[in-house]
């Protein structure tokens, strides 16, 4: 059900050139994946590939609906393709490392604390970015 909604959001985003719908679609895909993971008892070894695939979907979706750019020349297109593929490959490697670290370390209070601090830091970053963006928006003519 969630996956169907995600596909619908992605299609809507592509049709209406709305990047926000693309992000919502990927979020729903993540929720569907989380639901799938809850039904399993062991760690999914394909998770890095799923992460890379989701990243590719978001990145390609954004580039497809991007409206305000100019007509890119050939070199820009080639570099874009190379950059996205490199980022996807890097995310596979990073995911593998994270999974290995998670499997090797004993779960405990310390690790959970590190995770919580990381999450708080990321949320703080989002809030900070939004605040700075508002300041810049006031500067824009």
């Amino acid at each position, binding site marked *: 059900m969630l996956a169907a909604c995600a596909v619908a959001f992605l299609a809507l985003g592509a049709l209406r050139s709305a990047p*926000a719908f693309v992000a919502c679609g990927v979020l729903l895909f993540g929720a569907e994946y989380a639901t799938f993971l809850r039904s399993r008892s062991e760690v*999914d070894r394909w*998770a890095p590939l799923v*992460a890379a695939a989701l990243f590719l979907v978001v990145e390609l979706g954004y580039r497809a609906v991007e409206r305000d750019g100019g007509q890119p*020349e050939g070199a*820009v297109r080639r570099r874009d393709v190379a*950059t996205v593929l490199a980022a996807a490959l890097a995310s596979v490697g990073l995911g593998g490392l994270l999974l290995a670290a998670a499997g090797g370390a004993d779960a405990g209070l310390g690790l959970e604390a590190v995770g919580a601090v990381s*999450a708080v830091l990321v949320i703080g970053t989002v809030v900070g*970015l939004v605040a700075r963006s508002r300041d810049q928006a006031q500067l824009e003519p």
Partner: protein
Amino acid sequence: MTRFFEPKLFRYTALAAVALLAALATRLPELVVLAAPFALVPALAVLLSRAPSVSVSVQLERDRALEGEDLDVTVMLRIDRPADRLDVLLELPAGVSLADGHDPLTIRAARGRRSLVFRVRCDRWGAYKLGRIRLRARDPFALLRWEQTADCRVPLKVYPSEEAVRDLLRPIETQVYSGNHVSRQKSEGIEFADLRPFVPGDRVRRVNWRASARRGELWVNEHHAERNADVVLFLDSFAEIGVPGASTLDLALRAAGTLTARYLRQKDRVGFVTFGGTLNWLLPATGAVQLYRIVDALLDTQIRLNYVWRDIDVLPRRSLPPQALVLALSPLLHPRGADALLDLRGRGFDLVLVEISPLPFAPIAKSAAAETAQRIWRLRREALRGRFERAGVPVAVWDNERSLAAALEEVSAFRRHARLSRV
């Protein structure tokens, strides 16, 4: 360059945050793996990206063009700090459009120099300033953007295109300098005028030997002199109908440009008067410099509202020389313009009126009342035209659908068959 954060950056960070929180809540390490690329890419973008440094200059293929012509605008970039994606937008004013290619262009701005060529079309006459460039650079994932506007504007003059005209209107009186018009006066020239008895001092080469042999005494040929003329183009700029690019003023300027070039080509002195919200004039002169002076004055012509009541008395005497042919281009939309022309006629000027018909530009009447109003307007225009004709002013109606040559021929026919009346 000024840095901005794209909405994509917030969405990526938000996705990462949601995935990490979900991982904490559900104790699923796979969700941390999902969050990793969405957290890492924005972090790297913010930490590693540096503002590009680009300086811009603009060069036009030429600074003068005719309406409808294409020309290249070269944007030269000197890139000191590179950018992965650089959007280059050339701002085009109304009246100039892109003829070929894309605007904006997205390039990979590597360190060094780079030239981009935009081919633009000059759609409408006018004096423009071209070369305001907007630059927008982005990081490889388009999470950050830097913007800069470079004002490198250079002037571009677009002259109105010429109408095809074969024969020009001949003035009734010519001036004293040599030119291409056959004068009424008899003097040295080529065109045969008459025969007369020989008087002492006549050149032998002018003796008509056949006539002399027949009459038994010496007779000589007389010729018409070739003289130039003074022509004053009088542009009524009180009001116009239409849209920019297709209005009565556009037609008037096109006709004025054509007539100026043609009269100057045949060595006449041409002057120019714009009578409207602002009053401008150029004294009659001849030569290529005068052509450029008049065309530049044409480009500055606009419809301007002005409550200052001026009439032609404020014009310097030399701007309307006696015996000049005054060629008026008017849509006859404003009573002050028509009154000024009748005033000129009353002062004895050889006046010709080319009426730029506003009828094709008038809106279509959609109701009976509008239709009646339009019919009354047309009748009033006909009555005004009648006033001019009664004053001995030939009036030719010109619109987009017929050639200027046909309108001028109509005037020529009127002048051939009507006696010049003095009001």
